[in-house]
């Protein structure tokens, strides 16, 4: 294991493998327009539910076709794009909003703290799926709005963690020192507090990453996810679930991809967390 530097120093083989898997999925998602063998929306109604390897005069469906006779491989390739984007963007939105508010609440205390944390209580106490369905009903459908809905529903989770961690960190001597030294709030929060609470937040973010893909899948199941005919892994599975016996490939392949993605993100997240958390760095 020579030649690795910085963060990757001492990274176990597993981590290298999952990082490669993630990179591969990301590349597939990025290159979807060029590597997808067919138009993911192109239906051939007479070739519905054909098994993997089905060949016609014009093309071979390597992973079979779906319930409308579309090439499953192409849909999974394009679905990677939608699913990754949904997860990445919604986690970014909620992580940013949630962390900022959490740190602020713990640092400012007083009314700011009460206002933010009670609002967090309010948001957390409304079950996420209900809140999402409600907001979709008001905002209407669309990719941007979907991100907004997911981001707006999930930020309180980060706030709680950021808040609790900041409370602990705030009493550390060197942060007290920085404060006494006249450093501004933002500077302290970003320079000193954030690095200390990044570990637990990473864990939440990586867990949420997979959950967001599932969440979109759930909304697809309720008919409110990504707009058809655009595919996401979740919507492919949601549409394919009633064919699990007749056409197992529709759910198995995107399911396997999703599993690999979630597994990789989580393994990477746990490892990153262990690296970032100052308390476990001693090991």
């Amino acid at each position, binding site marked *: 294991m020579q030649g690795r530097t910085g963060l990757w120093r001492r990274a176990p083989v597993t981590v290298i493998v999952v990082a490669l898997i993630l990179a591969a999925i990301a590349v597939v998602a990025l290159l979807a327009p060029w590597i997808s063998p067919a138009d993911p*929306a*192109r*239906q051939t*109604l*007479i070739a*519905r539910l054909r098994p993997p390897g089905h060949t016609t005069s014009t093309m071979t469906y390597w992973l079979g076709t779906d*319930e*409308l*006779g579309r090439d499953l491989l192409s849909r999974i390739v394009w679905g990677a794009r939608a699913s990754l984007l949904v997860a990445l963007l919604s986690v970014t939105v909620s992580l940013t909003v949630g962390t900022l508010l959490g740190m602020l609440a713990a640092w400012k205390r007083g009314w700011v703290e009460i206002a933010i944390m009670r609002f967090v209580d309010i948001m957390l106490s409304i079950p996420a799926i209900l809140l999402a*369905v409600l907001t*979709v*009903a008001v905002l*209407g*459908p669309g990719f941007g709005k979907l991100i907004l809905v997911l981001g707006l529903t999930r930020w309180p989770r980060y706030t709680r963690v950021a808040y609790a961690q900041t409370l602990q960190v705030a009493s550390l001597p060197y942060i007290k020192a920085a404060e006494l030294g006249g450093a501004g709030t933002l500077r302290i929060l970003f320079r000193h507090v954030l690095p200390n609470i990044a570990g637990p937040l990473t864990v939440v973010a990586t867990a949420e990453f997979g959950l967001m893909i599932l969440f979109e899948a759930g909304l697809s199941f*309720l*008919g*409110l996810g990504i*707009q*058809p*005919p655009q595919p996401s892994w979740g919507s492919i599975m949601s*549409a394919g*679930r*009633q*064919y*699990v*016996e*007749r056409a*197992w490939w529709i*759910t*198995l392949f995107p*399911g*396997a991809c999703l*599993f690999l993605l979630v597994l990789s993100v989580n393994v990477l997240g746990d490892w990153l967390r262990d690296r970032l958390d100052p308390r476990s760095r001693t090991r």
Partner: protein
Amino acid sequence: MLKHAFAGILLAAGLVTAPLLVGPAAAQGKDALTVDLPNDAATLDPHVQWDTDSYTVYRNIFDNLVTRDVSGKIVPQIATAWRYANDTTIEFDIREGVTFHDGSPLTASDVAFSIARIINPTFKSPQLSQFDQIVSAEAQGSKVVMKTKTPYPALMAQLVKLSIVPKAVVEKVGDQVFNLAPVGSGPYRLASWQKGVQSVLEANDKYWGGKPPFKTVTFRVVPDVATRVADLRSGKADIARQLGPDEATALKKEPALQVLAGATERIGYMFINAQAGPTADPRVRKAIAYSIDRKSLIDALLAGYGDPVNIVLTPANFGFVPDVKGYEFDLAKAKALVKEANAVGAQLTFLTSPAYDRRVVEALQQMVQETGLKVDIVALDHPTFLRRRQGRPDEAGSLSFGRWSCACQDADGVIFPLFRTGSIWAKYSNPGFDEAVDKARAILDEKGRLDLYRKAFEILREDVPGVGIYQDYAIYGARKELKWTPTPNEAFFIMDMKWGQ
């Protein structure tokens, strides 16, 4: 979990060909019937909700004023005979010897009360608009005299849906209690109702129409269609409502099960906005009409559970005129029309909601796109869909798919609300069409009405504010032993069922 879950898929897939479990051996005859419905009855007071699931349950608790036989003809139930005194006055003879479940006799005053109750605005019945042509109903001995505002040809078709409730009981217990503990005169009485779980009916052995075929009938609430199929296969349910064509295909392989399907009065159609967007140009609308390949839609996607139609009406409705020509699938013509209208690449929005089969919507989208138009699907939740579809023309979207049934088997309940100027669904206006459908709902002469509807459909053919695609089928899955023929009005009357070998 890993092993189990994915092994599960493979196991499930592999076992399709293996012999499947057969449920408990069917005995001769059967005491208890179990029915899987997609939703709970919203109300069991028959004068409140009338969605298919509520109706499925309470239809068996109550008798209706009149009903339809298997061929669709309106036949006596509580009314034994009826005659027009003049164009706006009808007399009904009320059946004698019918008793409610509490033992009290059903009289003409109960019938008059039922009508008065449903048309009373303060009762807030959602069904009001189906009965508001009735001005009054009066009991005279064993007769009921009913008056309508104007001559109203669809009256009898609407009265098929009117359940008779006992005046004394409703007045004594009040509307809210009556909804929870309904008392009717039908073949079954309510034994228990667990909200959201099931409602259990037990046979009314004194039913005037004969002995009910099962001692108890349980209507279970099973929202997921895949679960309803699993219930049939495991023997947990004897019959399940609202299966899709793909479920039907899968069920046919099961030795213990059968598919019961029947053509209904429900019309699968595509709405085309004639007042806003690129579809305001009639050439674009015609192009869309030419682009629909009914045969491959019905054969491939609906597995044959649908019959192609030329107009926005099914043969099960009065007013169906088979001689009005439709638009044959002709992509070349469609493309030429789009070019001619200078609409190549024009953006259309296809509004839809979870209430409509996503597969059909996506298939239609692709068919329309073949013409050179560009179609975006906008999937809204159902209330929002309704608000937009019924709102201003510029908000209503260019296209939407619908499955329309008025449960009255009359053209008046279909093309009047869909296309008459001023109707919430109409994004279209043509005085000639309005005149025809207005006249057709105000005369009683059947021949004259049919001529008017022919004229109306000819106008629709030219203007294409919508295009009929197929006559929809109601699909039920059931155990082999159940003998029953589904009816075009999607009624679920257990008296029509039998259990045999």
